[in-house]
Each structure stands twice: as structure tokens, then as C-alpha cells.
């Protein structure tokens, strides 16, 4: 039962939300990218969060504490939406359809807000922990 453990867990949460923010920013910036390095339109990406045990050898039920880790970034496999635009440089020669990235801007904004609120929640928990520690020192005052 140590404050350091809780601080490490919250720190991992902050780090994971930061990574999610980065990936969401990448999705938003590339919402209209019809050509990537391999020729296909931009495919939106999602972070994969996984919980890992903080310290399996600790006593006092601290071996149930889990911290969060981003173990990978996976592609979203929904099909690309097609738009009719014959004048577009990447349009298909015969049909005139352009494949746009499967990025839904509204969904990305929601992810952005979620990441931001989650980050704030972790920071608030951290503040509370710090206040508890300082209050504990008032016992002997």
C-alpha cells in the first residue's frame, strides 16, 4: 500500500492517453489523404490498450494492481468510402470514383474528447493522492 505504486499506475494512464491523442491527431490530419506510400488511401488507426500487472510479488493485495500499456496500433478494416469525382488526380480512370480514407471526423473528435477527459481524470486522481499524503503529515502537527 504505497503511494509510489498508485503514482506509477496513474503515470501509465497518462502516457496511454497521450499516445491515443497522437494517433487521433494523425487520423484527423490525414482525413482526406487519398494516396499513401503504398498507393492506397489512408486507413485510420486505433491504439490497442492492454493492462499489465504492476508488481506480482507484492503483498497486501497489491498484486492485483494493473497498469495500462499500449501494445500496438491496429488498422481499422472498414472499407473505404467511394466518392464520384472524375476530376480528382486519384480518380479511377473508368468509373471516376475516388476512394476516401475511412476516417469519420466526428468520431475522431469524440475520441479526442474522451482522451482529454481521461487524461484530466488521471491528473485529478494524482492531485488527490498528493493531497492525501500531505494531509497524513498533519497527523503529528
Amino acid at each position, binding site marked *: 500500500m504505497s*503511494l509510489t505504486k498508485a*503514482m506509477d499506475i496513474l*503515470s501509465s494512464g497518462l*502516457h496511454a492517453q*497521450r499516445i491515443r491523442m497522437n494517433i487521433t491527431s494523425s487520423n484527423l490530419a490525414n482525413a482526406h489523404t487519398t494516396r499513401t506510400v503504398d498507393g492506397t488511401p489512408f486507413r485510420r488507426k486505433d491504439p490497442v490498450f492492454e493492462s499489465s500487472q504492476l508488481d506480482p510479488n507484492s503483498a497486501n493485495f497489491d498484486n492485483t494492481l494493473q497498469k495500462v500499456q499500449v501494445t500496438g496500433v491496429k488498422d481499422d478494416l472498414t472499407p473505404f468510402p467511394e466518392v464520384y469525382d472524375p476530376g480528382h488526380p486519384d480518380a479511377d480512370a473508368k468509373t471516376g470514383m475516388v476512394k476516401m480514407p475511412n476516417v469519420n471526423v466526428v468520431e475522431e473528435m469524440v475520441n479526442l474528447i474522451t482522451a482529454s477527459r481521461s487524461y484530466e481524470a488521471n491528473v485529478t486522481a494524482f492531485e488527490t493522492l498528493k493531497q492525501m499524503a500531505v494531509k*497524513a*503529515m498533519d*497527523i*503529528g502537527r
Partner: protein
Amino acid sequence: MSKVNLDAGNYAQMMRAMRGTDLEALYRKPNADSAGAAGGVSPLDQFSNLIEKKIDAVNQVMAASDAKIEGFVRGEETSIHDVMIATTKADVNFKLMATVTRKVIEAYQDIMRMQV
């Protein structure tokens, strides 16, 4: 060197160590048992060693936080929350050490005020 653990339980333990056992040993007559049990170290040395170790541990935490701040200013450390967490840990550790030191000095002064 062990880090200072921050929580109310450990604070109480540290207080007991400083007010209770070790101070009593300080004013007890040093006899063969206590000196021999500690490997020849007198209770006075035990006490000052304890203080030294704890202050060293706090110093290490503060040095680590300084290194993180330096790294952030230089651009090596990119996550600002890491820097803030290290600063907070150093801050709380230091406050705990200051509180405990003040308590120890108060206890010493209490004893010195006793009439002979």
C-alpha cells in the same frame, strides 16, 4: 539504498522508530547487549546512521527529479507529465523528511526541558 516509502502507515513507523525505540536506546545505559547486538555500533551511531540513510534516500529522489527537469529543458524528455510526477514525488518526500526532522527535534527539546 531503499527509497522512502510514502504513506501514512510508514510515516507512523518512522515516527515510532525515531521517538520510541531508538530514542529510548539513546538514553539507556549502553551495555554489552545492545552494543554487541548491533555489531559493535553504539545506539548513538545507530540513530545518526538512520537519519543519514533517510536523508540520502530523499536526496536521491530529488536528484532524479532534477535530472528529469534538465532532460525536459534539453528536449530529451518529451512527456511533461513524467517531469511533473517526478517533481511531485520529490516535493512530498521532502515535506515528509522536514516534518519528521521537526518532530525529532521537538522530542529532543521536550526531553531537555525536563527538570533534573
